[in-house]
């Protein structure tokens, strides 16, 4: 196991501007350092405004950090070099429909990353797009579809396809499961677990659902007001939480203990 991602003193400030005066500095994320190993899953939890989405966006490159460095396999990532980053780190957004271009077909959108990051010819690119669509449980026919013609689960699958099409090492998901229906959510979680198994992807996801975290995360990072509160393996944090907040976040739900049913087959 090698460290695929290392984060040192990552910081993010915003300037809240009022009128002509220089703005007030607002700290969204205080210096934070952590690392992630290949094939591991990291869950980031916290309340609203705790900076958990900021971390995801900084790692994926959607925002530029105010300070600090991100190293991928020991190599520093330049915050303005999207090409270097997108071959290794990809992002899945919360709202699948909003993160897809409404005026462009699914195939063209999936072609985009290939167009800018590979020097393959047209046939190879098309073949790869169709292969990726199959991998996420869609059909080759979906190539010509526009996002609004798909159901919410299929839209999320397209987003996942876009995330894995360049065979990245890390996928970042910002609340990717919230907007989905329960039966579809389970399908998407299964899909992500399968992909992780097949492609050895490290997975970072932001969520507030304790159940999903317990199910898929290896490590948990708890945030509060832009500060790291606790970081550790899932086992340790569930069995032996050091902070009150951790306990609250991880045990807030699941009041019913119900027998499992083995009658339903996948």
């Amino acid at each position: 196991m090698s460290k695929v991602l290392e984060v040192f003193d990552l910081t993010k400030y915003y300037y809240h501007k009022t009128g002509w005066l220089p703005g007030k500095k607002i700290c969204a994320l205080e210096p934070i350092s952590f690392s992630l190993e290949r094939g591991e899953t990291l869950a980031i939890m916290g309340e609203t405004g705790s900076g958990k989405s900021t971390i995801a966006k900084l790692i994926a490159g959607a925002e530029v950090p105010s300070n600090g460095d991100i190293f991928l396999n020991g190599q520093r990532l330049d915050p303005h070099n999207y090409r270097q980053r997108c071959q290794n780190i990809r992002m899945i957004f919360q709202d699948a429909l909003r993160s897809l271009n409404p005026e462009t077909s699914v195939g063209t959108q999936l072609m985009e990353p290939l167009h800018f990051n590979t020097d393959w010819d047209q046939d190879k690119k098309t073949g790869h797009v169709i292969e990726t669509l199959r991998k996420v449980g869609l059909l080759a026919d979906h190539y010509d579809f526009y996002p609004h013609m798909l159901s919410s689960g299929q839209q999320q699958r397209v987003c996942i396809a876009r995330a894995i099409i360049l065979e990245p090492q890390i996928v970042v998901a910002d609340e990717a499961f919230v907007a989905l229906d329960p039966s579809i959510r389970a399908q998407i979680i299964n899909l992500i677990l399968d992909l992780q198994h097949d492609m050895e992807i490290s997975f970072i996801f932001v969520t507030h659902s304790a159940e999903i975290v317990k199910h898929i995360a290896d490590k948990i990072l708890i945030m509060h007001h832009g500060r790291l509160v606790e970081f550790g393996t899932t086992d340790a944090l569930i069995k032996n939480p050091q902070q009150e907040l951790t306990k609250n976040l991880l045990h807030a739900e699941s009041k019913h203990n119900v027998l499992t049913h083995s009658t339903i087959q996948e």
Partner: protein
Amino acid sequence: MNILDIRNLSIEIETSGGPVRVIDKLSLQLAEGEIHTLIGESGSGKSLLAKAILGFINPRWKITADRLWWRQYDLLALSRAQRRQVTGRDMAMIFQNPGSYLDPNTTVGEQLRESVPARDLPGTILTRRKQVQKRAEELMHRVGIKDHDAIMGSYPFELSDGVAQKVSIAMAIAHRPKLLIADEPTTAMEPSMRAQIYRLLAKLSAGDGMSILMITQDLTAVIPESQRISLVYCGQLMETGPTEDVMREPVQPYTGAMLSTSLFNSDTEPKSRLPTLSGAIPTLQHMPIGCRLGPRCPNARRACIEQPPLRSYKKHQFACHYPLIEVDSHE
């Protein structure tokens, strides 16, 4: 006694591709003081049902029902004005995004005072203002807002989601409704806030004998205080019954699937595949005939192209030809 009694309610919507039956022969009974949770994924018509009960009816909808009774009133037979009167007096609703249902240009206090009905205030018109203010403060306290002056002076956008939801609950209970419909009241909230709102609703129901129809997407949102649950899929009733019984012994395959996907049990192996229904929720234009779960159901067989009748098993009622548990057909 059932205060709300719905039998075989169907709603058809006219679309460009012909009429679509969004709600298909749905039955629902609600007893006085009961919390009933209605569970349905998107496209199940659960919000439409709430609108039909409250009478927010679009002329393009065709509503038919064997029975749509609220207490002693037949809601479908009432005139528009009468219906509004009954609804306005006895029912209230809270929504998913409270922030967007409050008037952004008026203070919270103003809106709350407006919702206090004048009819049950003591005193003359001269003392009215004071009475209303007192009642509004009382309402704030009942929903668990202690700092009423600060909240009543602020505008809706200044409030957090949780507080805004509490305010909208306060407005909803201002005229002491007999039925509160809560349409996904906590979907957008954090777990801790969610728990607070649920506790509040449960308390209100227990204290005032107010019935609550809780509409949610997810079995995890079913609160322990909820006496009965109903599962709806694509406008068809799948299973209904006392919460404990349904959770312990689901009969309908859909209930089983929802239970095993939604409630992660502590003994599920981490990173194992979750059991789930395959396929996607059908769109309005492509509803399957018969039992609408058919194409996704693991137990589906040929008979499923006919809609199964509602059958009973112990205290549940369910609609399925091939239930998970052997049910004596004479029952």
